[in-house]
């Protein structure tokens, strides 16, 4: 008998994504186009799965990133915090072909943190007195009102890391960390796309950002587009 953490390195994106099936809830790391698992995101389109529930802070941008999933018509529902002018979402919402759940960004993150930490629901002050409260339990604690929000679990998380070792201990780069680690904890299966793959022991235990217990498949992708959403330096001071 072998455990889930015996051997995690896979050679190809297709092999990494083999467990995906129609109708899954997929958590996708990134803040806009920053910190996206780019190769895994492309691979999902080639994998041919559909009717997905996609959980991501932004749902793509400028027809890029997860915008490609929407254009391919493989997404049934989006759970995100911010859409912006992203027409890939707006046009499908208007046509009634896409279900969109918008949630405050901190609540989105905490719902997945809770899922990974065995907390089924939690009370939060965010959104009290707003439309976010609608249809939810509100409780007064210590004279203040709080909304009950529920944990958000994923079937699969697609995670981008800067460095992984063989066990799947991860380190992230700058603000590319964002939702990646919390999504790994909230999913039954966390698939990691790492820029650098190193031997166990190469990352000092005190420098591990996410322990390898949370990750299950690791694919090494050295080259990334790392797109800018806005042209840098435009308003440099």
């Amino acid at each position, binding site marked *: 008998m072998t455990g889930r953490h015996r051997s995690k390195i896979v050679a190809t994106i297709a092999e990494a994504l083999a467990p995906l099936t129609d109708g899954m809830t997929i958590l996708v790391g990134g803040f806009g186009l920053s910190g996206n698992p780019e190769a895994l995101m492309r691979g999902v389109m080639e994998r041919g799965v559909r009717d997905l529930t996609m959980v991501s802070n932004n749902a793509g941008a400028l027809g890029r990133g997860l915008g490609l999933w929407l254009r391919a018509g493989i997404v049934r529902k989006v759970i995100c915090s911010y859409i912006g002018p992203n027409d890939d979402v707006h046009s499908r919402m208007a046509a009634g072909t896409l279900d969109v759940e918008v949630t*405050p960004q901190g609540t989105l993150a905490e719902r997945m943190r809770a899922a990974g930490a065995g907390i089924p629901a939690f009370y939060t002050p965010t959104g009290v007195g707003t439309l976010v409260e609608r249809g939810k339990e509100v409780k007064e604690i210590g004279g203040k009102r709080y909304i009950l929000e529920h944990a958000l679990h994923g079937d699969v998380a697609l995670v981008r890391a800067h460095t992984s070792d063989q066990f799947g201990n991860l380190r992230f780069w700058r*603000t590319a960390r964002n939702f990646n680690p919390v999504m790994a904890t909230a999913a039954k299966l966390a698939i990691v796309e790492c820029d650098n793959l190193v031997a166990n022991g190469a990352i000092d235990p005190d420098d591990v950002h996410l322990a390898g217990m949370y990750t299950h498949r690791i694919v090494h992708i050295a080259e990334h587009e790392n797109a800018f959403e806005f042209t840098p330096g435009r308003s440099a001071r």
Partner: protein
Amino acid sequence: MTQLAYWSTEDMARRAAREIPEGSIVNLGIGMPTQVADFLPEGHAWLHSENGLLGTGPFPAEGEADPNLINAGKQAVTVVKGGSTFDSATSFAMIRGGHVDVAFLGAMQVSARGDIANWAVPGGKVMGIGGAMDLASGCRRVIAMMQHLNKSGEHKLVQVCDYPLTAAGVVTLVITDLGVFEPTGEGFRIVELAPGVSRELAQAATGARLG
């Protein structure tokens, strides 16, 4: 009424910077508030970006931008010495937990009770909430920055917001192109008027009583 502009957005940002005590943790919202950083002396305060950065530095020199080092407005930034990075759940725990001293937020409407609306226009496309509700309800002090009137010349300082709320009763100060105003519950107290702005002009541009 036509669009007024007694203070430029630069003047507003300069005035906003004076509200930041030395050694505080500050979140500058997307849009106009981002400009406040231009008027903070180096090392004066620690800038928090909710996408996972404390110690946000100036925009990078040309050719030195890193697409994986951005602020919440998705602009490439730098990180100052002593800065740190963290995940989104930690970042919002900082906000919700009251560890951010002051947030500056753009706004569509602010009411006399300190309610703020800044994420949706009735009947308009839903652009999303982002970090606005967490920042507005979690930061210790919330300061709104906005034009005094909207593009149609309608009041933005109002008795009661009719746009969907971001948070209720949280705004302690509003900085506009006409001056600085404090919600009192009944109306707004004039803290300061921009040069050339009379009390009568400010009152005519405000949808609640100015005191």
